[in-house]
């Protein structure tokens, strides 16, 4: 039988770093094939080689039996390779339709393309409005645009890099229906994901990479989730435990927060109420674009909240900026790592300095004490296993998971009394995610409070004692997890009325 794509002995190095080392595997036509590995295991490089944006140093590929060596993405696309990028390749100032046209060869912008987009988006349950400007879309909606763009190329091999990380459970189910339909039509799918449960659900073949080397080609349905995770990271996964759940008095509350969004495509917040007690982990679940960004901006202090809506330790902090809030021991990890959480082209040490309250002794009489800054940055890097060449490496050159570990670590070593964190493990591999989750529970065990805003329901359910759901700018009361909690959450996420 002929394989759709066959790789043999692919190697690629970038300077001293061996990204891929003699990797071989084959994808059958119409199969959904998982590519698994931690951040930095070499998945991205391998995918780039298949997509033609990077050439291999050694090894060869075959496309349906014929030799295949694309020199650029155009040649790969001509053969029928399509790709949904992990770092979205969308143009913010252009509309959805324009973005889609840009990714398609030989297609012009006219009404027929708009109709076609609408047809596809309905057929595959990926609701998007072709006339909307991409800059106004949420992360989840943007990904739908990417997926539709790929599907319109009628691909033979669809490469999906972390496609479900921003989708709700229902959207994931819908996507899987789409993917299975595509696979039945004979399109092979190379599926890169950190979500092993999903991989076991839809993939019958998996290739596991670690540190650029092939570890195993196997059927993920024959292995447990933990076994696969252990193959990926090369050591045992530690089970999450909270040793010490002790809830104290209320430390933070949101009271009747209303806010009209300035952005015409933004979400208005309606009458949000929330109470956070000492030592508790509280989760806000919800589909992307339901007011999480607006709420997060208020909580961080990027946007000022109306007077006396945010109370921290009995003090009205609504009008304080984020620096003043940090001084009160309230710390944040925003969703966007680059741009919001860190300055992309500054070193880790410099980023360390930027988010610290002035009490942290990193400056003396306004002069930076670099040895102290580097020592603290090094602390974070060591404690949280951040893989980086040096403390002064630019934030943007770290992989998503590594940067996230650094950002969470940076806030955690302050021992915050309240930590507000959005999407703690978006695009982070299981090993690192586990580490971050453990660090969060440890923090709560020490009596700190944590507020998590996440679209990853598994994460919320495994960490939080109290769950709220945000939908269309309204926050539900806490969901009673004892009686049918999961069902209630799904209903609320879909917009069931909030009492």
């Amino acid at each position, binding site marked *: 039988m002929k394989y759709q794509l066959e790789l043999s002995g692919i190697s690629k190095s970038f300077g001293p770093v061996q990204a891929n080392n003699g990797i071989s595997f084959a994808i059958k036509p119409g199969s959904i094939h998982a590519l698994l590995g931690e951040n930095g295991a070499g998945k991205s490089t391998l995918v780039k080689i298949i997509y033609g*944006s*990077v050439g291999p140093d050694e090894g060869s590929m075959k496309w349906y039996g014929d030799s295949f060596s694309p020199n*650029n*993405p*155009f040649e790969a*696309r001509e053969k029928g390779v399509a790709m949904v*990028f992990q770092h*979205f*390749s*969308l*143009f*913010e*100032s*252009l509309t959805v339709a*324009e*973005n889609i*046209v*840009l*990714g398609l060869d030989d*297609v*012009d*912008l006219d009404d027929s393309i708009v109709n076609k987009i609408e047809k596809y988006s309905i057929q595959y349950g990926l609701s998007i409005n072709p006339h909307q*400007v991409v*800059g106004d879309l949420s992360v989840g909606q943007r990904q739908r645009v990417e997926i539709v763009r790929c599907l319109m190329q009628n691909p033979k091999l669809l490469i999906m890099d972390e496609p479900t990380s921003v989708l709700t459970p229902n959207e994931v189910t819908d996507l899987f229906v789409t993917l299975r339909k595509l696979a039945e039509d004979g399109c092979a799918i190379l599926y890169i994901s950190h979500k092993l449960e999903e991989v076991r659900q839809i993939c019958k073949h998996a290739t596991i990479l670690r540190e650029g080397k092939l570890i195993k080609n196997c059927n993920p349905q024959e292995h447990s989730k933990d076994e696969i995770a252990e193959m990926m990271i090369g050591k045992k996964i530690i089970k999450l435990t909270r040793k010490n759940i002790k809830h104290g008095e209320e430390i933070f509350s949101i009271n009747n927060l209303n806010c009209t969004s*300035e*952005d015409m495509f933004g979400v208005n917040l309606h009458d949000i109420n929330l109470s956070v007690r000492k030592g508790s982990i509280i989760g806000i679940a919800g589909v992307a674009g339901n007011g999480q960004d607006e709420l997060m901006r208020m909580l961080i202090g990027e946007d000022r909240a109306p007077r006396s809506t945010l109370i921290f330790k009995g003090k009205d902090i609504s009008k304080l900026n984020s620096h003043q809030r940090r001084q009160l021991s309230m710390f944040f990890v925003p969703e966007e790592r680059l741009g919001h959480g860190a300055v992309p082209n500054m070193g880790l040490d410099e980023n360390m300095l930027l988010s610290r309250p002035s009490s942290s002794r990193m400056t003396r009489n306004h002069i930076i004490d670099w040895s102290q800054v580097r020592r603290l940055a090094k602390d974070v890097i060591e404690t949280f296993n951040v893989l980086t060449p040096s403390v002064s490496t630019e934030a943007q050159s770290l992989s998503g998971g590594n940067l996230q570990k650094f950002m969470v670590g940076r806030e955690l070593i302050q021992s915050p009394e309240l930590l507000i964190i959005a999407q703690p493990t978006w695009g982070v591999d299981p090993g690192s995610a586990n580490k971050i989750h453990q660090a969060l529970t440890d923090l709560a065990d020490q009596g700190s409070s944590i507020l998590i805003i996440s679209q990853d329901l598994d994460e919320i359910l495994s960490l939080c004692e109290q769950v709220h759901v945000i939908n269309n700018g309204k926050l539900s009361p806490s969901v009673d997890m004892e009686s049918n909690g999961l069902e209630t959450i799904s209903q609320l996420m879909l917009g069931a009325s909030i009492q």
Partner: protein
Amino acid sequence: MNELFIQIVLGISIASTPLIFAAIGELVVERSGVLNLGLEGMMIVGAITGFAVQFHYNNVVLAVLASIVAGMMLATVFAFLTQVLLTNHVATGLALTLFGLGVSAFWGRSYSKVTVDRIDAINIPGLSDLPVVGPLVFSYDPLFYLSIMAVFLVWYFLNKTKKGLILRAIGDNHDAAHAIGHKVVRYRFLAILFGGAMAGLGGVYLSLVQVPIWVEGMTAGRGWIALALVVFASWQPFKVIVGALIFGGISILQLHAQGYGVNVDAQYLSMLPYLMTIIVLVTLRVRSKSKSDRVMPHCLGKVFHSTQ
């Protein structure tokens, strides 16, 4: 009164045309994500080249073509430096302006006391003789019509063609455009060349239509006004015409005010167009926070380095 009105309209068109040329070229350049501050330099080199060719050959078509080529040659230097050698756009553009001013002054020494035949307004028998409509619509010089046409064509190209869409996409996010497989450097190179050609036309308009003489530094900051016009127009072609007419109008107003003996020092009146530029830029920034942000190319002035 009618006479005066027609005279003012003609005056405004003559003052505006070089701005339209330079600005519409720069608009395309900036839409592709490149900031070329060498506009003034390319204009003045276009002005002297066109003037010299006209002086030696007395052939306006040849003179105009020569000015286009001159603008493009300077643009090629800029494109090579910024797109191939990856130099900083701002520094390179400033250098280009200084170079253009210097080299034109050097070449122009022998032309400072001569005069040439200007490019005349067209005369369409029948149409140009119509009362009011004739002088208002059918009696401009050919370059004026060309400038309006250029704006239409640029608008059509940017908004109606796939290549225009790709150009805008490159200006918005060159990394994504590269990842999809579009040729970032090639598009930008061509956009810069187009900008050079248009700047050359703007220059020759000054030396062969406005006043058929050569004066050192005769662009007098029009390249900078054109740069401001692109921002004023929030990177939209038709607004360039509106902006250019406003700026042109002020320069003419100033001349007529002096003619009527308005009791203000001439220096103050000469400042008006430049003052206007500053006021417009400031009010634009204050007024709009999101709308023009959306139109401004996100990668404007950023060096593109394909890391593969």
